């Protein structure tokens, strides 16, 4: 065989190798980003007016102008909007799902991405108070409540609904029921009592409530903690349809066994409150379709900085400066996750954003974001991932995610 033939054959084989080899270049993955556990975290910062979305721990400013320096963030009960509360205004952020059809290797993929966006609605005023109530943000400003339906936030010119009550309100009203025929059924706080209103008219349903400590709202039930002088109570308000008139009526019932101011939260059909007596209270619906304390109240863990609820099972998340504890409704500890890249942090350094069987913990001192979650059917919460934070002055955080109704297990 002559040399020319050999050289030619080798050249051909080399080209074949090169051609085949080059095809794998597109498979390179080393620079690809982490995709599976994408989340949508909105943060406010102590030293920045901007609101930011965290992508891989990197704060990316939200488009639009926000005056959100040190703002509190309140996640909507739907999980798909948030109120941004400062001393001088309330702004709103909503998420909309963007569908991207991608095609790879001949297969079409419909990718859903949740993109936070600043709403056109802004309510200005001094020291506004904002709560969630029945699909709305309830905003108290200058003694008057404005109801902001979550659904309108995406509109180009969203508007809040206002009811002209003949009182000066001291706390945002609760929207107990919304009826196109009969108007709004609300619970209004006038500094002395909590009064049920039908439209702009007060009803006979009322209970003393000088200072509102907190409220929470799940379906037909709302729970309110009030202090009257030296006495604190919690009561429930249940909005039910009168089978005779077809109208909705509200029934106020004092919850027995709670004689302390309570900070109430609710998720997945469960009310959980942390009392001024440093005990957790969990409410359940009894045989009479009224709320009562489930079991006995249990002591809060030492070092609690912040607490919140899981959206799916209402597992209780307790954040300390070094751990994320998960409590069952009987007070037993379901998990104790050490924030393993955090050291010497204080409560001022850490904040959290609860999600569905997951919670995000942000530590300014270590500049770390921890994603702590529990897989379906798994026994323990664990640190699923960690990201380096590009900022160290996170003031508040919320995680946009879909929040359902009742918990999937019995309490």
């Amino acid at each position, binding site marked *: *065989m002559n040399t020319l033939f*050999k050289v030619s054959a080798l050249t051909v084989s*080399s080209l074949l190798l090169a051609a085949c*080899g080059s095809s794998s270049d597109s498979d390179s993955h080393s*620079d690809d980003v982490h995709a599976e556990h994408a989340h949508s975290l909105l943060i406010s910062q102590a030293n920045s007016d901007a609101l930011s979305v965290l992508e891989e721990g990197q704060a990316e400013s939200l488009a639009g102008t926000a005056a959100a320096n040190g703002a509190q963030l309140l996640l909507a009960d739907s999980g798909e909007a948030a109120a941004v509360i400062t001393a001088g205004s309330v702004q709103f952020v909503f998420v909309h799902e963007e569908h991207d059809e991608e095609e790879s290797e001949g297969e079409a993929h419909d990718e859903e991405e949740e993109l936070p966006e600043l709403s056109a609605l802004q309510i200005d005023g001094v020291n506004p108070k904002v709560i969630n109530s029945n699909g709305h943000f309830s905003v108290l400003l200058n003694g008057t409540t404005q109801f902001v339906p979550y659904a309108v936030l995406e509109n180009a010119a969203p508007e809040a609904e206002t009811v002209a009550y003949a009182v000066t309100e001291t706390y945002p009203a609760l929207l107990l029921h919304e009826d196109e025929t009969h108007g709004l059924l609300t619970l209004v706080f006038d500094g002395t009592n909590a009064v049920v209103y039908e439209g702009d008219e007060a009803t006979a349903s009322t209970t003393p409530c000088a200072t509102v400590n907190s409220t929470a709202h799940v379906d037909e039930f709302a729970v309110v903690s009030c202090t009257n002088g030296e006495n604190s109570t919690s009561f429930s308000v249940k909005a039910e349809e009168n089978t005779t008139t077809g109208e909705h009526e509200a029934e106020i019932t004092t919850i027995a066994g709670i004689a302390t101011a309570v900070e109430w939260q609710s998720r997945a059909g469960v009310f959980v409150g942390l009392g001024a007596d440093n005990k957790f209270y969990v409410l359940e619906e009894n045989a009479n379709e009224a709320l009562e304390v489930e079991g006995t109240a249990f002591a809060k863990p030492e070092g609690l900085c912040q607490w919140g609820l899981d959206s799916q099972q209402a597992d209780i998340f307790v954040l300390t400066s070094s751990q994320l504890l998960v409590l069952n409704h009987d007070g037993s500890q379901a998990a104790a996750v050490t924030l393993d890249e955090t050291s010497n942090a204080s409560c001022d350094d850490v904040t959290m954003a609860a999600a569905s069987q997951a919670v995000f913990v942000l530590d300014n001192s270590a500049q770390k974001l921890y994603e702590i979650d529990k897989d379906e059917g798994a026994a*323990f919460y664990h*640190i699923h991932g960690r990201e380096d934070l590009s900022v160290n002055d996170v003031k508040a955080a919320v995680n946009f995610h879909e929040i359902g109704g009742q918990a999937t297990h019995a309490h």
Partner: protein
Amino acid sequence: MLTKRFSPNQATRGLLLFTLSAAAWVPQAMAADEAAAKADDGHQYHHLEAISVTASGQTLDEVVQPTKVMTGAELRQAAGSSLGGVLENMPGIANASFGPGVGRPVIRGLSGNRVKIAVNGNDAADVSAMSNDHAPMADVANAEQIEVIYGPSTLLFGSGAIGGVINVADKRFHDMPLWQGQGVIDAEVHLTTSSVDQGQQVSAQVDAGVAPNWVVHVDGFQRSAENYHSQKGEVKNTQTSAQGASLGVTHIHDSGRAGVAVSVLEYDYGVPNADDEDASVAPSQVRVDALFEKIFSSQYVDALTTQLSVNDYEHDELDEDSVVGFFEKENTEFKSVLSLREWAGINSKVGVHVNAQRLALCHDHSGCEDGVPDYSHLSWDGSKGGNFDPVTDANGKVIEFAHDTPMPITETLDTSVFGLVSRDWSVGQHNGKQEYALRIDQRVLQADPDSVRPASRQAQSYYDDRHFTSVTASAGWTWLRDNHKWGVAVAHAQRAPQADEMYWNGDHHATFSYQLDNPDLEIETAHALDITFQYFDRQQQWDIAAYYYDFDGYIYNELQSIKDPYHGNDVYQFVQKDAYLTGFEAAWLYQLNTQLAFNAVTDKTIGRLKQSVNGEKNLPRIPPQTLLLGLNWQQGHWLLKTDVKYFAEQDQVAANETKTADYVTLNALVAYELEWQRTHFDISLKGQNLTDAFGRNHVSYLKAYSPIAGRNLVLDLSVVF
């Protein structure tokens, strides 16, 4: 193309036929004499030339225990493209695979660290023994021959290879010049395509004499395949791609040779799983080998062979495009063997062997793109961290889990001395060979917790240095008379636990399983008895082996009764229990006429614990019994082969292990070879699993998700010039 250093006589050829695998010795069957007679007609297959066991420097008849060698066309006619796939039709060998991409051989039911994989005599330096989703870094694309070595000779490779050594030999180092007044160029090109996975492979190699004493070798290959199909449809996440290249330079002189070679090897393959998640593994390795051989004219010393191999291995485990697992292994191996001059009929070798290994890994769902993490900056008081979660199993045993992978960085230093002595014996018409080997290994294992966050660390004492001294001694005897050859080998073999067996802990993402550590592992001791019988005449050949391995403290990866509390995955732990393995292999070749031969191959392995676990004594992943029946027709340039292979049901399962049903595959091959203008062409068409049978591979961890490949046609073209 093969090494011509050893010139066998006709008897050697006869013995050679004994030692070839079933696949290998079928086509040329009774042709030894004929082959010798027509040595110049250019039609005989390559393996009829002298074959040496490259790693030990012995010819096949010089080794006491049968060594199986697969060369040339046999490699390309074999079943698969992975190392396990190529060897799986050899008696006693199974393929721990999950699809065409990865396959690590299992010998006589022994796998992992008991089967050593070597490249040109040096450790493959991969992590394939840790888990069979990790590909062996020894590719067969440009292999010159694959050797399966048993018995005393394995001690030249390292301790613990009680199952055997699989050495993939290529031509990166030469021992003969390629110079005939001018430089000689040898080259090969191979092209392969397969239907079941739309696979394509191209490989080529060139060997050139660039000066009277200098030979340069270059090779490369590229392989890719889509998801394969089983009888029940596409098996997701089984796509593969691989590529590699090597460059070697050898200087050959009158008193020896010296060479250096560098090679790179990369794989990227999917891992099938229950949820069809997009999981894959992408290993890569850069390897530098150096060889120095000096032949002495001394009265006492024959030769000194020194090998140095430096390897940098790493692999990513990917969840979609995110690197959630990362394994890194750096390995430096030095081996020097002194062959002493024959004295009183005694041939002997002594050597030293040093192997330094650093193994580290990362598991992080946020990504391991930065490699192995370093948490040395986090304060730690030496106490056990808080991120352990206790789970109680059915027996009341409390097992602690940590979601992260709290495996420390480990450094293992193995220092060994060994010797091998052999001598022929003869009494009247009886003769044979006797061989004795001894190896002493010292292992120092250091663990550094810097890669583990303090919250997931054990107490300080967990990371204390560990020292192991193991001693392995083996002996083998053969008795050869007329057409019979008997062989007996016994061994006392000790194996120190590996770093990964002791310290690997955490979520193993690629196999959707959780691995538990076991720092209490101690040295495993085996006592082995291996009896072989070989017979040949002009009509037939028999090759039978029976073996019994008795283990004191057998280390194996046991499936636990509990599930991983974070993901619900299977949980494994390396545990140590007394056990035994026994079995047999038998191969029969019967020449029906000068063209047509019938062959039968069967093997059976039984692996049992001496005390039951949850009522079961069987060891896990023991290969089922197999029976292969084949017909082979060879005439002129044509070769036709067909076989039926039966895989029996494996119902001898370990605790928590599931049974595997039996199945039968039908395979066929038609091959044609042609010599034209001193260029050799081989073209073959393989039909694998022609009946599209459905079956599962019992030795695979992922058998539930990766049934055997369905009907497959493989076309292979080879050009050697």
